[in-house]
């Protein structure tokens, strides 16, 4: 229990340290920023480039615009973050299904592992920005019966493209992890492929899957935000990032609000998966005495 509090304490300390660095730099830095020859390596400490921490936080509690009907900035950010979280979650789920599916195929057939794995690795070297517009334009042509492709689905698809990779790799390693002795034991019980999968491979894969799922969640959030920007989807945090950055010269603190929103979003996504780890804690035991 005291270890848990220590962890919280260190977390708070890290945030405070960041605040202190920010404000400290603002206080002591030269007016023109830090230059290395002709190149500026650290920004000017002006209020436009680096608003005070309290200004950035305070701005969250003010209305978005001066219009009398305007909502509080934090409400707008929270709603946008929730929208993005929903899209990212959809992408994550698709990523889980695709990733685990690929891992199952690769575990079952060695030939599939040789054939697929290089392509899976290669897929992650294609820059997201490059194919986001393509996905969007393909998506807009999809129309099956009453089902019509929505723009958010393109974003979720791109998020899943980033999410599936760590999940596929982690799941493959996990499914391959049972000891030979356990595999032979299942063989002596005349347990078939599916029984072995359910009773041995999946439980044994849990310790590998959990970090992979968490990585996948963080990737899905990044993918969703970037895809929102590059497909121009309204309503999410990605759109606000671009929109508010455009207003930064007049209202510099406002531009930081969606960034905070994105950070919280990532933490919530990764934290939800950590919760999964608490539920499955018995699957993280090892046979040897701890």
């Amino acid at each position, binding site marked *: 229990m005291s270890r848990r509090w220590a962890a919280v304490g260190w977390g708070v300390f890290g945030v405070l340290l960041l605040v202190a660095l920010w404000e400290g730099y603002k206080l002591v830095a030269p007016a023109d920023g830090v230059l290395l020859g002709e190149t500026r390596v650290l920004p000017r400490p002006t209020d436009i480039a680096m608003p005070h921490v309290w200004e950035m936080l305070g701005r969250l509690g003010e209305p978005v615009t001066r219009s009398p009907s305007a909502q509080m900035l934090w409400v707008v950010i929270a709603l946008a973050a929730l929208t993005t979280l929903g899209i990212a979650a959809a992408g994550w789920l698709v990523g889980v299904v695709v990733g685990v599916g690929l891992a199952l195929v690769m575990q079952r057939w060695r030939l599939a592992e040789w054939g697929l794995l290089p392509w899976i690795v290669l897929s992650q070297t294609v820059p997201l920005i490059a194919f986001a517009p393509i996905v969007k334009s393909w998506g807009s042509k999809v129309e099956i019966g009453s089902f019509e492709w929505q723009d958010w689905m393109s974003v979720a698809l791109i998020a899943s493209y980033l999410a599936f990779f760590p999940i596929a790799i982690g799941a493959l390693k996990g499914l391959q992890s049972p000891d030979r002795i356990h595999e032979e034991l299942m063989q002596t019980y*005349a347990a078939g492929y599916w029984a072995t999968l359910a009773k041995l491979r999946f*439980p044994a894969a849990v310790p590998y899957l959990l970090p992979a799922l968490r990585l996948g969640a963080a990737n899905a959030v990044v993918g969703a935000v970037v895809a929102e920007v590059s497909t121009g989807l309204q309503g999410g945090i990605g759109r606000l990032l671009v929109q508010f950055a455009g207003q930064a010269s007049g209202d510099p603190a406002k531009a930081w609000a969606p960034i905070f929103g994105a950070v919280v979003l990532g933490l919530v996504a990764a934290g939800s998966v950590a919760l999964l780890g608490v539920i499955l804690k018995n699957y*993280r035991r090892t046979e040897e*005495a701890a």
Partner: protein
Amino acid sequence: MSAPEIPAGPAASAASPTAPASAVEVRAVDKVFETRGGLVHALEGIDLTVAAGEFVSLIGPSGCGKSTLMRLIADLDEPSAGAITVFGKTPTQARLDQEYGIAFQQAGLLPWRTVAANVALPLELHGVASAARAAKVGELLDMVGLADFADRYPDQLSGGMQQRVAIARSLAEQPRLLLMDEPFGALDEMTREKMQSDLVRISAETGAAVVFVTHSIPEAVFLSDRVVVMSPRPGRIREIVPMRLGGAVGGAVGSEAGARADAATRAERTDDLREDRSFFDMVTAVREALHGGTPVATGARGVENR
């Protein structure tokens, strides 16, 4: 299990597969492994009959193929030549019919399952109803003396306790044959002797035949009706030594009536036997067989009493 009343020899049993007297029959079995360094003859010309209810140990130096032989019986590997039957069936059929239970040197428990759930695993896989499963698991844990540990996880147990769970698990399907590959090899001496005494009792209680791989001479002598002494490269059976302990005559040699009589006398083996004259004589006999027939000093002196 209903045993046939007529004492049937191995030859007779081969002719009537419905009531086979022998648990295991190994006929002219060779096993060759292809490795990068060339062909390795793991086993050559193995002939062995294990009667129902008989306790047979396989002993020999590393590389003599004793574990390989056990794996062939368990259908975890296939012989290169020759034939094996388990209760008159092919090893594959015997495996599918769950004719044998198996225990390895490592306990091989699933770490995410409790002790009870580990023992229940084979029953679960074979669709035994949960009430019947719980009753059977309780009975088995009583037998190995771990009833109080049913809800613990393997990492909360000592090595000896883990191994006892593994033995309970191997008995879950009430097999007529137990295959054990150095199950006590990783245990300390005290635990090991305790486990040996437990195994003598359990094998008598269940009436199962046991094929027991070990490299400890006293362990083989204490447990067995017969000790199969093997030699390496290529793995061959050098000699089969029947155990005559505490005045009882082990006359099994593959016949079931003999094996049943032996199982009865085996159940009476206690720790006192470890200090009995006949025990040392048998240890010497196995030692001499292991060392290729050259006589070694008889009696207690010079006996590796491990």
